[in-house]
């Protein structure tokens, strides 16, 4: 029975921890109380069946056990003195939806503490909000569980030192939190997407949990186009995971992927959320990236892709986010429209900024191959090898070097 119930606990966890953290003004106590409540639920629900409103049941149980723990602990005086009147024993009321969404957003925002390294922000969100075990998070990041344990403990101490106010945020604060939390979720996904050195299953965990958190934001803030777009973007990208690597562990470029391996259900759901985001309006970086991803997944092949549309999306994205990497992607789309020579010329401006970026050299190498400059292509690909690529990337690049060498021998 327990694994069926665990799924329900996992589903309730973000809202429950968020509400309990506000109740107790203490994240550790919130986590402990929630764990106690789940343990109680295992017995009670197995005997009497699951309640119609599991969140209300868990919150009431957690509030009571949390208060018990407080009475027995030394933290009691400190915590009770801050808000004694709020902590009288009583059934926990489900916070109203407005309060609940601010609670969850606050909890996620606390994880995005500016003094924390980006990976530690992600790790602590996975631990506290999602409830992954330290071991699971450690394998997601390819570090030892002990190392991850220490990092999470350190991160929690930093968080505890500068508490975030529990008052209702102003609209500006809410907007700021939403932006930072969304970025953290986006980077959680990217971390999973790019950690191709690890065992396949583990890196997928980060992608899946990022999607779960993006879903949570959309559920809490249904009128926010940018968050619907973020979810759309993650789903549309994740849908392609089955085709990213071939049977030999070689990274397969988007153009060459077997599109029948793309997940149609996820593409449909991503597209639905993109349409919803477009209906709401608000152009932002996620909606443009989601539109680009949608243009790719709706095309039957690389040649049948609407490249002019994708090129214009990248131009818009570059206007909002004028970074060399966005420009690189823009040039890649331009190469499809205006040819490799045009793209190679455009790439020259990026040489300084992206000389340490593997994809810059990989793309340049491919374009040089296209125009038959194999010597220069080999140099570009060798630059990729020098920049510590992941194994699947390295295999793909080594094959390209071999092709160019063969061409040179043939001449």
């Amino acid at each position, binding site marked *: 029975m327990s694994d069926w119930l*665990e*799924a329900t606990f996992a589903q*309730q966890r973000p809202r429950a921890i968020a509400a309990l953290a506000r109740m107790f003004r203490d994240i550790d106590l919130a986590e402990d109380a929630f764990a106690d409540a789940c343990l109680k639920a295992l017995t009670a629900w197995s005997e009497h069946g699951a309640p119609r*409103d*599991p969140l209300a049941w868990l919150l009431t149980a957690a509030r009571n056990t949390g208060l018990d723990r407080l009475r027995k602990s030394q933290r009691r005086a400190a915590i009770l003195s801050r808000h004694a009147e709020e902590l009288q024993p009583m059934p926990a009321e489900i916070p109203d939806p407005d309060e609940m969404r601010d609670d969850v957003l606050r909890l996620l925002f606390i994880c995005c503490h500016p003094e924390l390294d980006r990976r530690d922000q992600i790790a602590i969100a996975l631990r506290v909000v999602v409830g992954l075990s330290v071991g699971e998070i450690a394998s997601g990041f390819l570090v030892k569980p002990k190392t991850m344990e220490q990092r999470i403990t350190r991160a929690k101490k930093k968080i505890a030192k500068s508490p975030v106010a529990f008052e209702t945020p102003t609209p500006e604060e809410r907007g700021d939190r939403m932006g930072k939390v969304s970025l953290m979720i986006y980077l959680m996904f990217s971390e999973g997407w790019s950690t191709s050195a690890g065992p396949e299953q583990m890196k997928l965990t980060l992608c899946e949990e990022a999607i779960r958190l993006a879903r949570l934001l959309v559920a809490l803030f*249904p009128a926010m186009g940018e968050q619907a777009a973020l979810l759309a973007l993650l789903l549309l990208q994740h849908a392609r995971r089955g085709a990213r690597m071939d049977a030999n562990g070689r990274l397969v470029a988007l153009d060459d992927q077997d599109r029948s391996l793309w997940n149609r259900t996820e593409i449909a759901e991503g597209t639905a959320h993109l349409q*919803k985001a477009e209906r709401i309006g608000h152009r932002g970086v996620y909606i443009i990236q989601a539109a680009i991803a949608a243009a790719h997944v709706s095309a039957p092949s690389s040649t049948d892709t609407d490249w002019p549309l994708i090129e214009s999306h990248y131009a818009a994205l570059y206007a909002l986010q004028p970074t060399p990497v966005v420009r690189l992607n823009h040039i890649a789309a331009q190469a499809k429209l205006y040819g490799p020579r045009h793209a190679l010329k455009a790439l020259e401006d990026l040489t300084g900024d992206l000389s340490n970026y593997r994809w810059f050299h990989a793309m340049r190498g491919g374009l040089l191959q296209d125009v038959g400059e194999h010597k220069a292509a080999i140099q570009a690909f060798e630059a990729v090898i020098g920049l510590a690529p992941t194994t699947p990337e390295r295999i793909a690049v080594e094959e390209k070097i071999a092709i160019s060498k063969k061409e040179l021998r043939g001449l």
Partner: protein
Amino acid sequence: MIYAITIYGEAGVFEALPKDRQDQVMSGHRALQDALKKKGDFVSMRLMPPTSAVMVEPAASDGAPPLITDGPFADTKENFLGFYAADFVNLSEALDYAKLISSPIARLEVRPVAWAGGAISSE
């Protein structure tokens, strides 16, 4: 009589299940679909999560267009997740079929259909 077997549960819980439990749920659905296929026409749908929905609310006044909103705030209680509908001999047979997809994460409702159009028309 046509009966609908509607499925209620919390969106996201299925995804949080371990793989073998997911397979267990899905094998129930496959069994039901195979059984229904043998009987004749049926319809079945699995809906996307409620977050993907848009609401068309009644117009505030006569002549006004209906109000389109981006969905209710997250309701943590049960959601309508999907349904099956087919012609059954009687309630008892409909219940037997419904039992095939019973699982701890879903509540099923077996309800007679007053009118059906399309593939399993009641007319």
